């Protein structure tokens, strides 16, 4: 069914009892042309673009838990594209372009809100780094501008400009097209659109093994819901990528860490944009529901526990309380952790692997949500055609052998 004003009106008169299921819940077929492992935003977007742009309808997405239940449902929903290097600028700005009309394309409101992302500078070094990013972005045609402290205050009235705080604000880099989106809606929108095109989304189906034929090429997956034959597998499993790739004998340049976030009790509208601070480890925005959404840095140790130490979130709240003293009495409701897969150069891997038929999209580390549509779009091309998309081409695994790294300290807005 198509969402429109008339469908809303019709349902309003029918007591909203006639809304259909938004995606099918099929049994796995014995064989598919391609299988995507992981039904998060990136995996579902990949499947959607494979069906919509490459005509692959006999494909499936398998998911260990429920769709959008991993990092897609755990992140702080920040969208921006002001990265430093040309390769990343192209990738993240590609995603930002798709975000602009994603709700219309999917006919599903992903609540993309270009409310602006302000990255604060607290030291001379921060100022220099921010301006370097701004100049690099300007050369690449990506908008990003410098605000002095007064302009920062105009943009975020609750900001504390006191010069006597531990890390006084010396300015900030603002990307006005940056903002937030509703993370669950992104997964649901892609799932609904992909399912309508014939993609089977199979939940509660954990991959236990990757089968390979005599030539070494992928020939199927062993799952908790039986064997699925396929010649192409795209692994989009975030924190568990290393575990899956190990099943095919591929060692990855990845380490998995817990990354925590937390939300406050809902407040009336007070916070108009997204504010991030590299130096003092905090990022914050206000959701449409009213709660302050706050992100922390990663814990220091490898873990798959989906939880982390309280001292990490406490450190973040110290920073938030200094930047926004009025939030000191706000109560925090929940905190949680997700497992992020971090590469040595903090850039993702969207690539073929040494195993024929096996493709991988991983290494998004602490900042993958913003790239969801672009990541899915370029990875769909890589899986469907067998060759990397132009934008994805630099993001190989081989770059760790050739040394052609894409060193993005900005990949996470917080320093590591």
């Amino acid at each position, binding site marked *: 069914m198509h969402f429109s004003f008339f469908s809303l009106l019709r349902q309003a008169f029918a007591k909203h009892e006639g809304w259909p299921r938004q995606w099918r819940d099929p049994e796995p077929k014995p064989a598919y042309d391609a299988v995507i492992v992981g039904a998060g935003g990136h995996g579902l977007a990949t499947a959607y673009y494979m069906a919509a742009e490459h005509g692959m309808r006999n494909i499936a997405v398998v998911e260990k838990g429920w769709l959008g239940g991993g990092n897609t449902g755990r992140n702080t929903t920040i969208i921006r594209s002001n990265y430093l290097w040309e390769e990343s600028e192209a990738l993240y700005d590609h995603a930002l372009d798709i975000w602009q009309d994603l709700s219309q394309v999917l006919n599903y409101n992903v609540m993309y809100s270009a409310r602006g992302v302000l990255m604060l500078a607290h030291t001379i070094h921060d100022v220099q780094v921010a301006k370097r990013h701004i100049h690099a972005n300007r050369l690449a045609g990506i908008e990003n501008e410098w605000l002095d402290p007064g302009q920062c205050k105009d943009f975020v009235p609750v900001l504390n400009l006191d010069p006597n705080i531990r890390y006084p604000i010396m300015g900030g880099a603002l990307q006005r097209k940056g903002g937030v989106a509703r993370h669950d809606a992104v997964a649901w929108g892609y799932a609904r659109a992909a399912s309508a095109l014939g993609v089977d989304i199979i939940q509660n189906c954990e991959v236990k093994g990757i089968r390979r034929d005599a030539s070494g090429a992928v020939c199927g997956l062993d799952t908790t819901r039986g064997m699925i034959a396929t010649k192409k597998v795209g692994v989009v499993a975030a924190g568990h990528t290393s575990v899956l790739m190990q099943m095919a004998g591929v060692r990855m340049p990845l380490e998995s860490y817990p990354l925590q976030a937390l939300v406050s009790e809902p407040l009336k509208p007070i916070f108009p944009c997204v504010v991030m601070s590299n130096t003092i480890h905090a990022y914050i925005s206000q959701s449409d529901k009213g709660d302050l959404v706050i992100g922390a840095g990663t814990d220091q*140790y490898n873990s798959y526990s989906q939880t982390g130490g309280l001292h990490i979130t406490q450190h973040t709240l110290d920073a938030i309380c200094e930047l926004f003293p009025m939030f000191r009495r706000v109560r925090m409701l929940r905190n949680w952790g997700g497992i992020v897969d971090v590469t040595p150069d903090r850039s993702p891997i969207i690539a073929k692997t040494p195993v024929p038929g096996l493709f991988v999209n991983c290494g998004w580390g602490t900042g993958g949500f913003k790239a969801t549509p672009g990541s899915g779009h370029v990875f769909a091309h890589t899986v469907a055609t067998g060759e990397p998309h132009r934008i994805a081409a630099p993001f190989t695994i081989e770059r760790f052998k050739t040394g052609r790294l894409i060193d993005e300290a900005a990949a996470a807005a917080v320093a590591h």
Partner: protein
Amino acid sequence: MLLVTCPYCGPRPEIEFRQAGEAHIARPAITCSDDEWADFLYMRDNHKGYMRERWRHVAGCGRFFNVVRHTVTDKFVASYKVGEEKPAIPAEAAAGPRVEIVR
């Protein structure tokens, strides 16, 4: 916060330490291939389960040491000095549920 046992100083809170990644990764000879060098620098097991890893007691004795920790429960099972014999990895079934973090 985790409680980390330094083999030199005893149990101390996690904030005194820095985790330093997978343990027992030997530097290859200078004549090694690019692949071996990339393996040494970047490729990691990132194992889900018991992991041998290095920690450094930066705010204490400053020394590196090795531990065996489970990466799902975050539970430490052994802590040993560099050069000592590696303690055995327990059976995966013995891992049990995740321990409550000391707060």
